[in-house]
Each structure stands twice: as C-alpha cells, then as structure tokens.
C-alpha cells in the first residue's frame, strides 16, 4: 500500500482530522485553566472558605514549602516505592496464579468459589490483620496494595486465558506442542491485551491500597500527609498531596501504556 499520491479530498480529510484533534487538545487545556482560575478567584473573593477548600495558590505555596524543607521527596519516594512494589508483586503473582489455575482444570474448579468470595471481599478489611502479622510498616502497606490487585488480576487474566481460540490450540497441538508450549506460543500472547488491561487497572488499585495502608499505619508517605493534614485541619496539605498523587498515578499509567506499545511491537 502506498499513500504517496493523495487526492484533494484526501488532503482535506486529513486536514479536518488534524484541526479537530488540535481543537480537542486546546479545549482540554482550557478546561483545566478555567477550573484553576475559578477556584482561585472563588477563594480570593471569599465565595468559598479557602481554609476548608484551599486554593491553587495555597497549594502551590504548600508544595514549595515541602520542597524547600526537603520532606517532599521523602514522602513521594516512600509512597512511590510502596506502590510500585505492590503493583509489580500483585500483577506478577496474579498472572502466575492464573497460569497455575489454567494448568489444572480440577484445581481451578476447586478454587472457584473461594476466588469469587475473595474478590467480593473488601480487602481493606484485612489491613489490621496484616499490620499485626507484618508490623506497622511498609511491609504491611505493600501487602494491602498487593492483595487489592491480586484477586482481580487472577480472575481477569484467567478468564482471558480460557477465552483463547480453541482452533489455535488445536493447531499447535497438531504441530506437536506440549502444555508449556501451548502456554507460551498461544495462550500468553493471545491474552496479551487482557494482561495489559489488568496492568492498567492495577495501577489505580495499587495506589488505593497504598494510600489506605498509609492511612492505617505509617510515619511517612502521601497517605500519611493526607491523614495528618486532615487531623490538624491543614486542607492545603491534603490538597497538595492529592495533586502529587494524581500526577504520579498519571505518570505510572502512561508508563504502562508506553510499555504496552513497546512489547506489542516485539513479541
């Protein structure tokens, strides 16, 4: 296929798409700017109480204070490490368990009701248990994050595995493939989109797990800052932490997306 010779209509069509995309980006930025401006104005004109609702200016000031006294990095680093650890462990263990379930029909049938219940259970409820078992520290927090993403990953990835096209499995079997080869040549690659999808969901879940974990225990981290800010009625601190949190979550999400593109082109 070649796109070298474009007709007039084609050029116009491409132009239309381009200008449409551009206006969408502009609108997105405008929405953000307007939101900030209204918030700031409302706060400084005392339509809302800046002490409770904070304001972009106050948040920026808080951020720069945290930056100058050096505590910003400690908190960000703590939370980030816990989240990445929880995310990686939860996803890896989830995929691994899904593989084990896939490898034995009996096993997966036996475990099915337990998985369903475990999925319905709010994993946060186990937080205090982990704290008692693992101590009031990062280990307990990581475990909470891991548990939250684990069961969803198992169920989702396992369902993906089961939906592998039977004809493709028959095909590799007819070529003499063993169980392991069926897994690596057909089941895993054809479930790639499902795995990637659960990776993206897990990014969000791991943040939830870590923040909740930090609410429960912890002497550092963004979750700690939020709880602390709430207790001493420093809403600026809470808001500032939320801002950092959304930035980090977005970065991690796009990281996964880039990873997806990278792998998709290669496997």
């Amino acid at each position, binding site marked *: 296929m070649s796109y070298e010779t474009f007709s007039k209509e084609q050029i116009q069509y491409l132009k239309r798409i381009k200008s449409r995309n551009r206006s969408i980006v502009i609108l997105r930025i405008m929405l953000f700017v307007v939101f900030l401006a209204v918030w700031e104005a409302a706060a400084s004109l005392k339509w809302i109480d800046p002490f409770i609702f904070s304001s972009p200016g106050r948040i920026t000031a808080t951020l720069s204070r945290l930056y100058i006294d050096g505590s910003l990095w400690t908190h960000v680093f703590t939370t980030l490490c816990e989240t990445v650890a929880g995310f990686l462990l939860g996803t890896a263990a989830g995929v691994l368990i899904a593989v084990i379930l896939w490898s034995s029909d009996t096993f997966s049938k036996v475990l099915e009701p337990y998985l369903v219940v475990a999925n319905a259970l709010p994993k946060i409820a186990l937080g205090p248990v982990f704290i008692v078992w693992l101590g009031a520290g990062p280990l307990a927090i990581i475990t909470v994050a891991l548990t939250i993403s684990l069961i969803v990953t198992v169920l989702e990835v396992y369902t993906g595995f089961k939906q592998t096209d039977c004809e*493709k499995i028959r095909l*590799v079997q*007819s*070529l*003499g493939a063993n169980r392991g*080869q069926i897994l690596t040549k057909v089941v895993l690659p054809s479930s*790639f989109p499902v795995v990637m999808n659960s990776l993206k969901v897990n990014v969000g879940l791991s943040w939830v797990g870590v923040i909740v974990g930090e609410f429960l225990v912890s002497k550092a981290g963004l979750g700690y800052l939020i709880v602390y800010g709430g207790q001493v009625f420093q809403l600026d601190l809470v808001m500032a932490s939320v801002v950092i949190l959304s930035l980090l979550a977005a970065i991690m999400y796009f990281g996964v997306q880039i990873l997806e593109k990278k792998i998709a082109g290669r496997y």
Partner: protein
Amino acid sequence: MIPAVKLEKVNKRYHTPEGEISALEDISFSVGEGEFVGIVGPSGCGKTTLLSIISGLLEPSGGKVFIFGEESYGVNPKIGYMLQRDSLFEWRTIYKNVMLGLEIQNQVTAENISGINELLTKYGLNAFRDNYPSQLSGGMRQRAALIRTLAVNPKILLLDEAFSALDYQTRLAVNDDIYNIIKKEGKTAIMVTHDIAEAISMSERLYVLSRRPGTIKLSVDINLSIENRTPLLSRKAPEFRQYFDMIWKELDIHVL
C-alpha cells in the same frame, strides 16, 4: 506397497453429561502414498472427527490407525493438519507464523529456514513475510497456512474445509494453487469438504459419509478423461457432471 494411512474399524463416541453421541462407526479405508483422497458428507456427520483421529489429536473409541504401516498413537510428526480456519496468529508476522511448527519441534536450523524461505518465494509470499496476517487477502492467508503446514515437512496432509472461508472465485484459484503445491511436493492428502464439485475436482478417490453416525456409504474412484489434471480443468471434464449427480444422490440432502 505400504499405505500412507490405513484405518481399521475406527469408531468414535463422544461422551457428554447429556448423553452419548456416536460420531463415527466402522470406518475402514486406506490411502496410498501420493494419493489425493476426498471425503464428503453432510454437516455434522463426523468429518472433522475423522481427521482429528487420523492426526492423533483425538483417540478413537475403537479401531486402529496405521501411518505408513505403524500403529499410531498421539500426534504424529509425519502428518500436517490444515484446520477448518487458517488460524494464523495475528500477533506474528507471516514469516513468524510459518516458523511456528519448527519452533515447536525445536528444528530451527539454517537448513530448515532456507527451506521456508524457498517455500515463501516459490508461492509468492516472500514480499509479505514481514506483514501481519490481517494485511493479507484470504487466498494469501490460506497459502501462508499451507506453508506453515509444509514447513515441518509432513508426508501426509489433512485438509479440513480449508477453503470454506473464501469467496467462490478465490476458492477456485486457491484450489488450483494448493493442489499444485501438494502435487509438486509429492504429498499424500486427505481433504474434507462438503462442496461436491470441489471434492471431485481435486480427488483421485472420494468417500461419501452417511449422516451421523458417519459410516462410509460409498467409495468412488474419480477417473477423468483429461491430461495433466488440475482442479479447474477437471471441472470441464465430460464425466464431471455424472460424478456430481451420483454423489449428490448419495448425499441425500433434503431441504425442508
């Protein structure tokens, strides 16, 4: 001469919680080396089951399968199986797709790779080796699937309605194409189809299966008075019509 494929009183019953289904009953036939044999039968009569049993993917409930004189258990590397759909892996390039069998059988050697390259060139897919299956036409995909099957150098080919996904024109062309490839490579072939004309045009012998449970109702040797037969030429043979009518009658298809 030892037949390439020999079936002795093969039968197959499927067991399901709802009950037992007898899919095949008392199937015996043999196919000589280099022969092209067709199997036709009404839908659901057990054609795919039969090929799966020959390939070793499925165990017969009774009876024996011999491949080149040896009783066969399990998947046999001498047999290449083209399934009802081309099942190319959409995440692999054409080249990677045709490499699949060699990868699985741990036979990625320089010699085999050059064999694959030869096949790709010979059958007009070399320019598309780095394309993905979705970028190929139906006929090209079918050819890619055939090369994937040939890559591991099977002696016997099983084709299960390999052309049913194609439109009529393409199908005729691909029939010729694939027939020539199989003949040129000197393979034994067993082809399942429910297209009577396709079966007659390609086969040297034809088995007609009855409705389920499938039994061999009739065996027909196809002798056409044309030289250098190809599927397309065969359709123009004077005897073609008679064979067609005879098999049509045997198939006993009712449209309600």
